[in-house]
């Protein structure tokens, strides 16, 4: 496919990797924020192309992974109500709550449906006026324009039997939380390309300045990620800490203004709990003003039972980049995608799932890629 497959070219990847090998003189630790980037890195074995001096740590950019367990419990409780059609992106279904996942609820008869877009959930509400349609509005800034538009259209078309269980989180406050932690090992960031496609990257300039950390807005294909690493490492080697944009074909500095306007109209910024990380100030969205009538949290009273996390899951450490998935004693033994202890083993963006699916169980040897016709150094 155009604008996709050409960024998976192996020869070009080897050329970029060569540039990184030439640039690096010291050890550096770089975090990719987004779980989509993590999957590309692990699936394509990009780490094996890089010099041993570069350590990639995987960030918290997996909305499924950071949705708090009490919200999963709440989703399950709402889904079990007979009048409810509960709609969600597919990723959320197998995430374990305290005792059940949405998938378990579905197996027991709850009407849980996977949708591609929040507008599909709105359509379902229109065609089922005698049912309540609840959409699990999970996601980072990338997904916020879609969820904002669903609430806006519901209001415009006066659809009363539609609501959203909102668990929206924001990337920059999470980066700041990681950087201000004493255990922070991250020296440079690959910022999440599509988050910046929506929000732009003005917000990252003060972070780069305050923490003296390079931030490179990076895409999701192998060449994007290698170029993003090259740009980050170049800054580190040259003692620079700037915000740069690798993903220029899709991302502008100011982001997508019409999308931002709609988000601001529908959502307001609030403190949010992050599974594994705790509460982060001003790190999420909730519905504001006249859109609060679509808030499922208000429409359905909370269950009294306190949430229970698995004691064996170390997802908090994984999401902060302190531990790698294969360093967890439960990894691939007690915790598998079929029987996950924590969300990172479930989600298609979770670091544990990436390591499991692509067979990364230990540190690999790194071999400098040789270009055909190029004498090895």
């Amino acid at each position, binding site marked *: *496919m*155009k*604008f*996709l497959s*050409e*960024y998976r070219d192996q020869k*070009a990847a080897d*050329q*970029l990797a060569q*540039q990184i090998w030439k640039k690096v003189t010291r050890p550096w630790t770089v975090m990719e924020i*987004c*779980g*989509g980037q993590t999957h590309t890195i692990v699936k394509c074995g990009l780490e094996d192309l890089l010099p041993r001096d570069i350590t990639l740590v995987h960030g918290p*950019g*997996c*909305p*499924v992974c950071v949705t708090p367990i009490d919200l999963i419990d709440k989703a399950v409780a709402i889904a079990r109500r007979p009048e409810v059609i509960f709609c969600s*992106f597919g*990723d959320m279904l197998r995430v374990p709550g305290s005792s059940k996942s949405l998938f378990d609820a579905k197996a027991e008869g709850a009407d849980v449906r996977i949708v*591609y*877009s*929040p*507008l*599909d959930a709105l359509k379902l509400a229109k065609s089922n006026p005698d049912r309540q349609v609840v959409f699990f509005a*999970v*996601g*980072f800034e*990338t*997904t916020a*324009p*879609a969820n904002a*538009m669903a609430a*806006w*259209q519901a209001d*415009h078309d006066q659809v009363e039997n539609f609501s959203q269980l909102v668990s929206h989180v924001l990337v920059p406050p999470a980066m700041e939380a990681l950087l201000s932690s004493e255990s922070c090992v991250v020296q440079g960031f690959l910022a*999440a390309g*599509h*988050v910046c*496609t*929506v929000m732009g990257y003005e917000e990252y300039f003060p972070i780069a300045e305050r923490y003296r950390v390079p931030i490179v807005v990076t895409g*999701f294909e192998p*060449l994007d990620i290698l*170029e993003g690493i090259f740009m980050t490492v170049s800054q580190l080697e040259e003692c620079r800490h700037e915000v740069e944009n690798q993903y*220029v*074909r*899709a*991302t502008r500095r100011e982001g*997508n203004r*019409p*999308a931002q306007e*709609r988000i601001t109209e529908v959502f307001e910024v609030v403190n949010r709990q992050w599974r594994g990380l705790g509460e982060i100030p001003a790190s999420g969205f909730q519905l504001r003003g006249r859109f609060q009538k679509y808030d499922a949290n208000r429409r359905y009273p909370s269950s009294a039972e306190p949430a229970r996390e698995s004691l064996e899951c170390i997802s908090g450490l994984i999401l902060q980049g302190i531990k790698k998935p294969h360093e967890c004693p439960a990894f691939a033994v007690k915790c598998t995608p079929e029987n996950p202890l924590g969300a990172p083993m479930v*989600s*298609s*963006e979770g670091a544990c799932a990436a390591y499991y699916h692509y067979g990364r169980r230990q540190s690999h040897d790194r071999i400098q890629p040789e270009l055909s*016709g*190029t*004498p090895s150094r």
Partner: protein
Amino acid sequence: MCLAVPGRVVEIMDDSDIAFRRGRVDFGGIRKEINLAYTPEATIGKYVLVHVGFAISVIDEDEAKRVFKYLEELGALKEELGEIPQ
């Protein structure tokens, strides 16, 4: 979840309200109806980046070639410096 896929706009269904502007987008042969409210600059033939049913950006086709141009120049430079045996 932040996955977005590029596709080519093949048809536009305009609405009096921009919030309902839609189009048909071709993803390597599969066509889907996509909301174009956030990309008023998207016209037929352009590539848009689509996430959960919404176009969030129009692909800049010149910028899309940048990395390949860079690698090409690098190759030419190497040749000049005699790093690649001819």
